[in-house]
């Protein structure tokens, strides 16, 4: 699946998007996998309460299922307007 990052999450991880092959059942499971990869992921996901997640371009929750999901996006709370 496609994983995309925005704002300081993108900066900490050091890339805007990547293809991730994973059997993670939920967003939380995926985060655990990513954190285990490298320090920069651990830094980006250190405080989940400071993050938001969208699944296929819809805001979602960290315990949501990834079944059938093609794109996961991680970013800080939005600051539009």
């Amino acid at each position, binding site marked *: 699946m496609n994983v*995309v990052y*925005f*704002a*300081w999450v*993108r900066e900490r991880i050091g890339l805007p998007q990547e293809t991730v092959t994973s059997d993670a059942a939920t967003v939380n499971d995926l985060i655990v996998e990513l954190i285990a990869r490298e320090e920069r992921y651990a830094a980006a996901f250190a405080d989940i309460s400071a993050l938001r997640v*969208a699944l296929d*371009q*819809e*805001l979602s929750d960290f315990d949501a299922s990834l079944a059938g999901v093609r*794109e996961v*996006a991680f*970013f*800080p*709370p*939005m*600051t*539009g*307007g």
Partner: protein
Amino acid sequence: MIVRVQSDVFDAGAELNSFAQGRHDIGAVVSFTGVVRDTKGDLQEMLIEHYPGMTQGAISKIVQEAVQRWDLADVLVIHRYGPLKPGAPIMMVATASAHRAAAFEAADFLMDYLKSRAPFWKKEITNDGAAWVSAKDADEDALNRW
């Protein structure tokens, strides 16, 4: 209902004048323009990042919600991304209705939701460096008004 996401500057006055033009069932038009603020005088530019695949859809959903709640003749949302200079327009909302209360409330609602639910992130480049603008608890709390 028009939603535009663009890097180009827009002309708020021209947008206001062409908005809901020629309709005679409208008594009230409310507009909001967000401007790059530089209170301390040290801002070089504001960088606005967005999530291209999601932005248009997220804004349209917010607009649909407003249209369901209030009796609106028309709605306009323009939101820019990319580098913006101090004093530049960031975004604009306009609402048209037969009555002023609906136009005011819907514009206020749209702004609250665009602030916290449209996928934009602001970064300020000042003389002292760069910093992402933090979301305020008050902005999230504002959603509970609706």
